[in-house]
């Protein structure tokens, strides 16, 4: 291994913060997992990840897959069905994909006799589709496929 021309510095063990003694005016940003748990400079431009206490882009799962993994499971019941299902709300981009997935979950066809309703955080049963999608995913606690009368 060539060490010529390096100077001895490379072989010296050093204690203390990396990057030499300078540091300058810019605060050294060590993106240590545990530092961020302390929640100090989470605003350092890496604020894309909304979850607090976690380093951006860690664990290294690509965004496509992350959307499929991040669990926002809610229970779905259907009038007349003997058991409930669970559906992951975070896997959808909007109402149309979501409602279709609900229908697929129970094998409901195009001539759907069921209307999806949901229970919000206040305990009220609401019709799916009134509020913006993002708000819906945050407030929906459980779902029900109600048979149209």
């Amino acid at each position, binding site marked *: 291994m060539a060490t010529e021309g390096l100077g001895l510095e490379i072989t010296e063990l050093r204690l203390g913060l990396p990057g030499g003694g*300078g540091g300058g005016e810019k605060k050294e940003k060590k993106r*240590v997992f545990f530092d961020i748990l302390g929640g100090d400079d989470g605003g350092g431009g890496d604020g894309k990840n909304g979850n607090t206490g976690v380093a951006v882009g860690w664990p*290294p799962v690509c965004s496509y897959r992350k959307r499929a993994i991040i669990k926002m499971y809610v229970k779905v019941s259907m009038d007349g069905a003997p058991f409930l299902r669970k559906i992951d709300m975070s896997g959808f981009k909007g109402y149309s994909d979501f409602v279709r997935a609900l229908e697929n979950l129970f094998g409901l066809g195009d001539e759907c006799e069921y209307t999806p309703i949901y229970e919000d955080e206040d305990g009220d049963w609401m019709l799916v589709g009134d509020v913006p999608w993002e708000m819906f995913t945050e407030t929906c606690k459980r779902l029900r496929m109600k048979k149209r009368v």
Partner: protein
Amino acid sequence: MVYSLPEEVLEHVFSFITSDKDRNAVSLVCKSWYEIERWCRRKVFVGNCYAVSPGIMIRRFPELRAVELKGKPHFADFNLVPDGWGGYACSWIDEMSRAYPWLEEIRLKRMVVSDESLELISTAFKNFKVLVLSSCEGFSTDGLSAIASNCRNLKELDLRESEVMDLSGRWLSHFPDTFTSLESLNISCLGSEVSFSALERLVARSPNLKTLRLNRAVPLGKLSTLLHQAPQLVELGTGAYSSGIRSDVYTGLSKAFLGCKELKGLSGFWDADPSYLPALYSVCSRLTTLNLSYSTIRSPDITKVIGQCPNLQRLWVLDHIEDSGLNALALSCKNLQELRVFPSDLYAADVNVTLTEQGLVSVSQGCPKLQSVLYFCHQMSNSALITIAKNRPNLTCFRLCIIEPRTPDYLTHEPLDIGFGAIVKHCKNLNRLSLSGLLTDRVFEYIGTHAKKLEMLSIAFAGDSDLGLHHVLSGCESLKKLEIRDCPFGDTALLANVAKLATMRSLWMSSCAVSIGACKILSQKMPMLNVEVIDENGSLDSRLDSCLVEKLYVYRTVAGPRSDMPGYIWTMDRESANRI
């Protein structure tokens, strides 16, 4: 005498040489071989779209039929590259549309593609056959409509993992009734529903269709219809794999799978309902590829499926498979070459999921052909890594992600240096490695000493000092791509190895300890490198040499500095320009 062979003969001989590496070697033999070769090269792979310009490529290779380009750095997959960074396909497609009227294939990865570019592709290339957009973005279903409407001879349309602006599913209906050449279609990334009748008719009139990857919106009840129209399918990606309790759907599905005698690969399985899994048992014995990584089915159900797949070569699965499922895999699948186990929970360990290092050890013991591993887990030990290394010296790709950064050996509480050291020591053909866990500079010494065939290395939250980086840069002879985040590596190692960087495709360093001063020196010493500093917050003071950079991307290029950089990228050129 070789030099007296006429050009036509040499050209004919070269036509049998298809690998890029071999073609490059041929072109270096002598001037006349270079000339002959460049006129008959039909495909080119550009690993970094900024390493060369479209003009340079076109001047050298005037008769290409297939071009493959990669854009953003790999860490863009994990949101580490800000929006607007670059990787625009536009200029490439524009220039190729003028230079290569007979271009047949375009493959792009991590690039930004516009609808206008897709429209241009669909009209400029009369014999266009293959479009693969892998992890791309910037286009909508309108662009897809143009492709569908105009590409008469299209064989392959693959949108894998791209971010498509999903305006509607109507684009699929734009394939004309006379269009019958489709061989491969992958729309699994699309959210909106395509017209099922249009899809069914398309499948029915495509006798050569071998690969069909549906999106989640295609209901399970309709899958059997498609399978009956395409029993010759080799690769199938299902839509949602559940349908309530419908025995008619189940029976229809079983019957349809029975008819698929050529099926070798399965994927999809969103929202999978385990009660529908037995419907595919009839194809299991022929399966070589199985991707269950989007389904949350649990270990006993996974085990039942795998137990019927003795010919499995590639398995992608969530950690729901648990150690028990991996033990079963090790027993049943002796032909396994590639295993990927993804996490079902990104942060805390799910107490209901027992996946440990033991599962991987079992597979390394039971599967003699195992070459490629991607494994997410919560605990690891040096002894397990050593066992894996000794069991499987034929590993070529080893990517281990222990989810909590800096996790030590859970038995000894030591760093995992000797474990990974064993991997690089025993696996002499290792070309790709990703590290995790608690690691000191020691592991990099092992890597620099032993990993002579290593081409790509990913490092995160590891090392103690510049010595670590120095070991890698000075020791890894075959290194092409190095990506580092959150490591205490800085100026000394970088500046001691500047020449090395010109032998590599690229270097990414983020949240390390590199100063702007070092970047300036690097730029000055190495004019053939583009040294790009990403400063998202605008907090970088480039006048202060000791100021640390947040993100650094260095790559070799013959095209000079790029002209499409966003405002938040600093380069030495911009610095000089500002001074004037």
